[in-house]
Each structure stands twice: as C-alpha cells, then as structure tokens.
C-alpha cells in the first residue's frame, strides 16, 4: 500500500511511511521546524509591535490580531489536516496516518482555545463585551467541543486500533459538519440582530499589519508541524513497544 507522507521533497517518500523509518527522520526535522517557527515568530512580533502603525479606530488593542487570526486559521486548518490523515488511514490502513491524527488534536484544541481567549480579550475593548454570540466566535466554540469530543472518544477506547479507526470516522464526520455548522450559525446570527458586530469589520488593514499577521501564521504553522512530529514520536514509542528497534532505541536514550 502506498502512503503519501507529510513532506514530499521529490524523494521517494513512501518508504518513510513505516514508523521505524519515519521516527528518526521526524527527529531530525523537529529542531528545524522549531527554529523556523521561532524565527518567524520573532519577525512577526517585531513587525507587529514596532513596524505596524496604530489603528486609527481601535488604537493599540488591534495588536491582538497577530495571534488571534493565525490561531483561528490554524484551529480550522488542523482539523482539516486531521480529517485528511484520518481518511488516508481508513483507506490505506496505515498506522502512521492514524498516529498523525492523534498527534495533531491537542495542538488544534490549543489553538482553538487561544482563538477564543484572544477573541474575548479583543471583544471587550472593541464591542464592550467579553463574549458576543458572533458567528465566528460561536463556530470556534463548537469547534473546540469537536476537538474535546475527539479526545474524549480516543481516551475512552483502550484498544489502539479501535481508537484510531473510531477517531478517524469521527474526524471525517466532523469535517463534513464544520461548514454546515458555520453557515447555520451565521444564518442564525443574521436573523437575531443585535450581536451583528463582526471581527471582519475591524481595521482596514495596512500592509505592514497584514505582513505581521502572515508571519505569525507561518510561525504557528511551523510550530504545529514541530509539535505534531514530536508527539507522533512519543505515540510511536508508546504503541510499538514490541518492536526490537524501539527497545534498542530506548536503551540508548538515558
């Protein structure tokens, strides 16, 4: 069975689908992604705080955007990537893709929470309230519930194989439902006037603002890859404890 791998670089990526070849490769990639994330983050923060001008409507409070928007993007993007690996895992029956799904979930939930938290802190000075039943905020909250549901389901199943496959079905059902949820919440929101303030009507963006946001988004992306690779390595260690290479490896690591 073939299995595409996260990073295709023109080399034969299929042989890295086996956990024992993937494990050292991932180990080599983690520091790279980690440092690239840190560099993007530093650049993004510099642009965000020292280059981007003050917004004439919102003053300095808009600077929350540099984490709020990237976190919100990542929260949704990670769920889609999860669903992709879940589908690959179900179709090609590859253990590594299922492990990748489980490795992505906590980071996705973290970004979802960050998006909600920063949304609330941005909402207070902008709308005068911590929480508005705005379409984006509400969908983000439901997305957080979907992440929690996924984690609870996998935690509730002892058998790794069943946990993988049940989680995969749930991720696919979730990803089909996310757009439906989003549009229904939006529809509901427009019907119930009053909470119609939207984060999109926020500042007309200066180019430097956009640059800062994109840099931070890239940082979040690289961080996610590093975190997921790190976690997938732990999952491999937990799951494959019968394999000889794992046992030998554990001895070499003090």
């Amino acid at each position: 069975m073939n299995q595409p791998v996260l990073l295709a670089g023109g080399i034969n990526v299929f042989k890295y689908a086996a956990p024992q070849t993937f494990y050292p490769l991932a180990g080599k990639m983690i520091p790279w992604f980690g440092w690239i994330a840190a560099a993007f983050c530093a650049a993004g923060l510099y642009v965000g705080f020292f280059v981007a001008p003050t917004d004439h409507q919102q003053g300095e409070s808009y600077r929350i955007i540099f984490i709020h928007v990237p976190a919100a993007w990542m929260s949704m993007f990670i769920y889609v990537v999860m669903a992709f690996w879940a589908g690959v895992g179900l179709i090609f029956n590859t253990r590594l893709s299922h492990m990748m799904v489980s490795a992505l979930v906590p980071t996705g939930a973290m970004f979802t929470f960050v998006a909600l938290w920063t949304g609330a802190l941005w909402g207070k000075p902008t709308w005068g309230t911590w929480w508005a039943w705005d379409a984006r905020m509400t969908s983000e909250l439901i997305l957080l519930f979907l992440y929690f549901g996924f984690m609870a389901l996998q935690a509730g199943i002892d058998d790794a194989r069943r946990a993988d496959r049940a989680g995969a079905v749930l991720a696919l059902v979730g990803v089909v439902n996310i757009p439906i949820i989003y549009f229904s919440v939006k529809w509901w929101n427009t019907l119930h006037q009053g909470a119609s303030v939207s984060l999109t009507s926020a500042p007309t963006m200066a180019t430097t603002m956009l640059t800062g946001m994109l840099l931070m988004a890239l940082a979040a992306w690289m961080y996610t890859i590093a975190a997921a690779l790190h976690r997938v390595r732990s999952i491999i260690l937990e799951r494959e404890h019968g394999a000889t290479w794992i046992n030998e490896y554990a001895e070499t690591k003090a």
Partner: protein
Amino acid sequence: MNWGSWDNFWMMGGYGLYVWGSYAVTLALIVAEIALLRMRRREALDTLRQHNGAQA
C-alpha cells in the same frame, strides 16, 4: 519605532491588559504544551525501559 518609551510600550495605549493578557496566555499555553510533549516522551521512554528490564 512606534513607542517613545518602554512605559508606553507596556501601556499599549491603555489596552495593555487586553493585549498582554492575550499574549501571556498564548505563551503560557505553548510553554505548557512543550512541557507536556517532553513529559510524554520521557514517560514513553521510561515505560519502554521498564518493559525491557522486565524481559531481561
């Protein structure tokens, strides 16, 4: 450079609480996630070594 002084920087034009509240919690969560990641790896390795010890 936008800010005349560090004081102004931390004040964030009166929005310091909101801006720094956002950044601090995000930072705390990322630090916590990294700590959890390392803990999980250490625990996985410990369990493996115990398995190996039991077999040897």
